């Protein structure tokens, strides 16, 4: 396809095509939006068995040197210094104005920190981090590593016999392991709301690793389409859609990612805005909502008070295959943000009744 000609490819591009993946442009990469089974079947298979996603487009890097954790804290309000070896944490990179520069995962591997950032932001993120590093702390980009996500309630039974070290982890634990002789670093995490692992491996071994994992009982390939509907059911934000540089952690309801120590010291970029918003509240807040009936409402749909004024807009919206109904993430005025509040969505010029609803829409099933 012409539109994918100038796109980058992951080490699994050949495998995606061999599996019948429908390739689309995403963050500058040609990525499979779905395989022949389709988004609905792939989504439901992840919730009932296990799915394998290629997320190699995401940015991987390691931060090494004395004081790496303290250095990283200059651009994030997460408590990195308290992150124990073998553990991973979700964090936000911040703008000086208190907006969200990106969201990311950071793991402590003892002698270094491992970072995973969004594909669309990786160059900017790494430049931001490098800009604050003291002498002796180095960011090493890892473009020669692939990242695979094995997700679903069947993932543990599938991977256990191959890599018992990985099933010994609890949610957000990180370990090195070997899978059929391939050295990997894996975290018990993901972005679907299900149990599973994100597995980093050398690019040259990625296809062999993917084939090993796809041959495990109950494991099927899943594309970006299913990844998107799964993360939305799980109430998880997509950077650039649900959060961005204009959004604060307080508006985005992500203050839980700010370390307690950091909230005492207020020593991170944008702390002034965050502190003020925590004290005084924000005008708008991120919420979940569920339209009545089966009609989905998509991103940018305007939200009104019933018969009244505009109170917000949808950022991500669609149909939840496991929810068996439409769902959306939105920002609304705090006065209308309580669960159960009746609202109207303006879809193609017509009001569609909906209610503010708690997230996740489908309960998380992490291995706590």
């Amino acid at each position, binding site marked *: *396809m012409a539109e994918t000609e100038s796109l980058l490819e992951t080490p699994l591009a050949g495998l995606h095509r061999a599996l019948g993946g429908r390739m689309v442009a995403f963050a500058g990469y040609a990525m499979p*939006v*779905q395989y022949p089974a*389709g*988004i*609905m*079947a792939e*989504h439901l298979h992840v919730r009932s068995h296990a799915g394998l996603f290629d997320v190699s487009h995401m940015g991987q890097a390691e931060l090494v040197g004395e004081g790496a954790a303290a250095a990283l804290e200059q651009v994030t309000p997460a408590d990195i210094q308290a992150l124990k070896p073998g553990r991973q944490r979700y964090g936000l990179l911040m703008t000086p104005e208190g907006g969200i520069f990106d969201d990311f995962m950071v793991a402590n591997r003892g002698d270094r920190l491992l970072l995973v950032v969004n594909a669309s932001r990786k160059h900017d993120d790494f430049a931001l981090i490098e800009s604050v590093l003291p002498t002796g702390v180095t960011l090493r980009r890892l473009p020669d590593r692939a990242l695979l996500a094995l997700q679903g309630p069947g993932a543990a039974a599938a991977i256990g016999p191959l890599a018992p070290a990985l099933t010994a982890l609890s949610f957000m634990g990180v370990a090195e392991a070997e899978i059929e002789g391939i050295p990997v670093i894996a975290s018990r995490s993901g972005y679907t709301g299900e149990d599973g692992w994100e597995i980093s491996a050398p690019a040259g071994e990625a296809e062999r690793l993917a084939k090993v994992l796809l041959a495990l009982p109950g494991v099927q390939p899943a594309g970006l*389409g299913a990844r998107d*509907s799964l993360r939305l059911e799980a109430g998880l934000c997509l950077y650039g859609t649900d959060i961005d540089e204009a959004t604060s952690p307080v508006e985005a309801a992500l203050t839980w990612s700010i370390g307690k120590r950091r909230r005492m010291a207020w020593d991170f970029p944008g702390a002034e805005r965050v502190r003020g918003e925590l004290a005084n509240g924000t005008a708008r807040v991120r919420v979940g909502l569920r339209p009545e009936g*089966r*009609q*989905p409402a*998509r991103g940018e749909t305007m939200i009104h008070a019933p018969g009244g004024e505009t109170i917000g807009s949808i950022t991500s919206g*669609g*149909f939840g*295959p496991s929810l068996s109904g*439409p769902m959306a993430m939105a920002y609304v005025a705090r006065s209308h943000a309580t669960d159960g509040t009746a609202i109207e969505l303006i879809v*193609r010029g017509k009001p569609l009744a909906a209610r503010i609803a708690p997230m996740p829409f489908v309960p998380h099933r992490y291995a706590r």
Partner: protein
Amino acid sequence: MPELKYTQDHEWVRADGDAATIGITDHAQNALGDVVFVDLPEVGREVAAGEAIAVVESVKAASDVYAPIAGRIVEVNAALTDDPGLINREPTGEGWFFKIEPADAGAVAALMDESAYAAFVDSQA
């Protein structure tokens, strides 16, 4: 059964007596993916050729469905409301969308035949 005619909007049209039955092609349903909702026009509505009169929503996106010919909506497929997956499973059968009584009896005959549509789809690939 009369042969199917096609439009560049990936719809099919079958002239059956006084009315023309309309749906989306297998190519279109495959490109859309799993259909989860359809918004159908009101029966009795007068429509112009090329007018967006229905919406089909898949897991991924919403797409307009156009009136391939001018006329009056005389029936819509109520079965799609409860089972929109019919559009994926039987796009040119039970997955039909609506029936139009043509304003111009010759309008359907002027649409693309199967081989012309196949050539059009190939030209878009």
